Every structure is written in structure tokens, then in C-alpha cells.
């Protein structure tokens, strides 16, 4: 079974969000182990652009594996303040360490996000 850490928040589109959920706070976003396992070996990540304004539910990037391609949804609203450039050369980090080295981007929140799931609720939808 894929790991679902208790301390993170989750979207129904299989992103995780780490950090304080308050306006002006910066959160880190990636995809869950469950999503990474479903995709298989990720060979290419199209990252969002630093400085871009993003809204919850927007498509802000894509993840390509040998088997499939998956859109990356932004689970929160705000501005992209950082992206994990290491993934350009080492996209496999997402599969190897989805909640650590495989983080994808950071957003400064414009508002408190709504509709995120706690680990228990997220684990329930992946069963």
C-alpha cells in the first residue's frame, strides 16, 4: 500500500500539500505515492512557471511516464514562488521520494484553500 503521511493535506486529484494553510503562507506541493505508482516511471515533468498566478483546480503542468501522461492540477490558489528544477534532469525522484525530493512546486497562498482532504479521507479514496 502506498504511504499517506498524516501531516499532509491532499487533493482528490492526488496532489499533496505541505505547510500552514493560511493566506500569505508558502506551501509545498507534489503528487502522492499512490499517483506516482499508478503512473510508473516518470520520465518528464513540465513544471509551472515561477511567478505564475494559479487557481485551485487549474492544470499547471504535466507528468509523463513511459505508460501514460497525467496532468498536474494545482490544489490551491496563489502565486508560484518556486519549482523543483532538479526534476528536469531527475524526474525519477517523484517515484523514489514522492513526499521529499520529489516535491514539484511551492505556492504563496492568496487564500485559505478549501476542500483539501486529510490523510484518512485521502487514503479512503485510493482504496
Amino acid at each position, binding site marked *: 500500500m502506498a504511504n499517506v503521511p498524516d501531516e499532509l493535506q491532499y487533493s482528490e486529484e492526488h496532489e499533496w500539500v505541505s505547510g500552514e494553510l493560511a493566506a500569505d503562507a508558502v506551501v509545498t506541493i507534489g503528487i502522492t505515492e499512490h499517483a506516482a*505508482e499508478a503512473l*510508473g516511471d516518470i520520465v*518528464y515533468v*513540465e513544471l509551472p512557471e515561477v511567478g505564475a498566478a494559479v487557481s485551485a483546480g487549474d492544470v499547471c503542468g504535466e507528468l509523463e511516464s*513511459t*505508460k501514460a501522461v497525467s496532468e498536474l492540477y494545482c490544489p490551491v490558489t496563489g502565486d508560484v514562488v518556486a519549482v523543483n528544477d532538479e526534476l528536469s534532469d531527475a524526474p525519477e525522484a517523484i517515484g523514489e521520494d514522492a513526499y521529499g525530493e520529489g516535491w514539484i512546486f511551492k505556492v504563496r497562498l492568496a487564500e485559505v484553500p478549501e476542500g483539501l482532504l486529510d490523510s484518512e479521507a485521502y487514503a479512503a479514496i485510493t482504496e
Partner: protein
Amino acid sequence: MTTETLRSPLHDEHVALGATLVDFAGWEMPVRYTGDIAEHTAVRTAAGLFDLSHMGEISVRGADAEAFLDDALVGRMSAVKLWGAKYTMICAADGGVIDDLIVYRRDWDHFVIVANASNKDVVFAELTERVEGFDAEVEDISDQVALIAVQGPRAEAIVSRMTARGADDIEAMKYYSAANVMLAGGIHVFAARTGYTGEDGFELFVGADEAAAVWQLALAQGAADGLIPCGLSCRDTLRLEAGMPLYGNELSRARTPFDAGLGRVVVFGTEKNPRGDFVGRTALEAVRETWKAAEDTAAASSLSTLVGLVGDGRRAARAGYAVLDDAGEAVGEVTSGAPSPTLGKPIAMAYVPLALAAPGTEVGIDVRGRRETMTVTALPFYKRGA
């Protein structure tokens, strides 16, 4: 039609190995065990072990078996030698492809046909209808048979060690031939030197009750050669690199073998070696003439043909994406596509108008709203060394 998910006789083996299982044509099958790229690479450089028990097996026996198959299929099965194998197709009367098949001759009056899992019921129904008037019996033996493939440059060495008598029989087997082989432990298999990976390899037909023993034997004998269990995900990238068509992607009822560049599988016969009627003959003769005529007037032709595409970018074309001409008009469709693990760049197969089918031609692909450029290239993308 049943909606119950089918399980391979090797299901427990897959669970024990920690495979990721997915629904595939109504079967719960392993999509991967460790990782798609590691499995793909193992088959290219060492060996991989596949469970193909979802494939359909249909037995044809009887005095008229070869005459029946000559009538029912587009290839000439009467020309297949004892213990030979032949890639062929079953077509509808209008020339559309019902399925692509491998036919094995097990005896002078006994053939085994391997059909795609998703088409097995349709193929069985067609053959059952077409056999009327022939002294032959068509039987669906899929439930009794497990199919285990050992594929890769080390396959010969591994399968040799799996046999009870040693290497001789296996080494002597030519590509696209088969033999009855007794494995260690006295397990009888029908071993064919065939595959769907672009590598040398063997496909072992074994009774469902002995499948687990053969699977474990292959893992035990293959480990030293780098054999690992491989899922259906890498099977798809392996066959794509090898330029092999997949039914439902490159092949369909709406396409003839000629459209797919596989007109050679349709045998019309020659003056010296004539062939009688077969289902689809009249339609396919007309299709052949159309294609002959188009060779001279490719630029003006409205025909589309299957081509290989290679991209320089990183975003891969996927099945269903539109092929664009210079004006941005959709003129064709991608049938399969993936980042090639061996080539390190995106590859695809697509139907394009003949005017765009020459190797070196650049075409656009609509990759989720953005145009990516790919170049037409000769198939296959990958060919194993001699």
C-alpha cells in the same frame, strides 16, 4: 458477455511478487512488478518473464483443418510446416481486420491459434461460423492453457536450463518454430520461439495447473542471467519500439492489412502456386489494386498509411492525438506513442496521408493543445543485433 474479472492461473505468483495489477481486457493482470524502464531494459539486455495467460488459444483439429484455415484466414496455413508458426490475420468479408493472430501447427491435422484477449470471443465465434462444411473442430482452450514468455537475449540459455534434457532441442529451434519440450520436473510444454518484444525469446504453452511450477522454474533458472518478471506496461513499449502493431491501436475493423503496411500477410497465390478463395479475398484484391495505383500518385492520394514517428522534444504523442499538416489541420491520428526507453526520445505510430508518409517528412502532433514536431521514420524503431 461476462463482467466478472478473470484471473490468470499465475495470479498468486503476481501477488506474492508485489505486482501492480490492473484490468486488461477483462483480466486482472500485472502491469509492472518493479518499474517499467527496469523491466523494459531487462528484456533488451538480459531477459524478462511475462505472464500472457490472458491471450486466447483456439484449437483447430480435423482432416480439413488446413483447408478450413486456408479459407478462414488471409494467410496460407497449408504452407506452414509441422511445428512452424505464422503471423496472420482474420479479416471480415469487407477486408477489415478482425484480429491479428499467430498460428502454430502442432500436427498435420492440428493447429493452435493465439488471439488477442480482447478479441478471443469474436475470433472463436467467427471461426465457429466459418468452419461449417469442413471436417474440423474449433475449440476454445483458453481456460486450460497458460502462456508464459521468456524474452530477451538470454532467453535461449535460460529456457535451455529449464528443460529436462538440456540445451540441444532449444538451441536447434529456429525463430518462428515450435516444439514439444519436457521441462525439469517432467512438465510438458509446447515451446514456441516467438514473441512480441523485438527480442529473441520463447513462449511456453502449459497446462493451467502446471503454470506456477513453470513460472517458478523460469525465475529460479533465469536469475543468474538477469531475468526479472515483467508486466504488460513494458510489453507495450517493447512492441512499439519493435514496430509491431497492436490490435485496437494500429489494427481495427476499419483498417485493412494494407493500410497498416502489412499487405504481405495476405496471400493471394501466384500463377505457379495458386490459392483459392478465402474470406475477404474479393475486397482485399480491390484494396491491393488501389494501393498499387497509389504508389505512383502518392501526393494526390487520399489514402492514409501507418508510419513511424520520432520526436526531438520530451513530450510524447499518445494514442488518439491528431497529426497536423503545415497549416495546422488535423490530417491523421496517432495510434500508439510513448517515450522510448531504448532511444531516449518520443516515438509513435500514426496513420498519415500518403503525401506525408515519406521518411524524413516533418509533421506536427497536437499534444494536448500544443504543437510538437515529429519526423516520419522507417519502422521498426529498434532492431536487435544479429
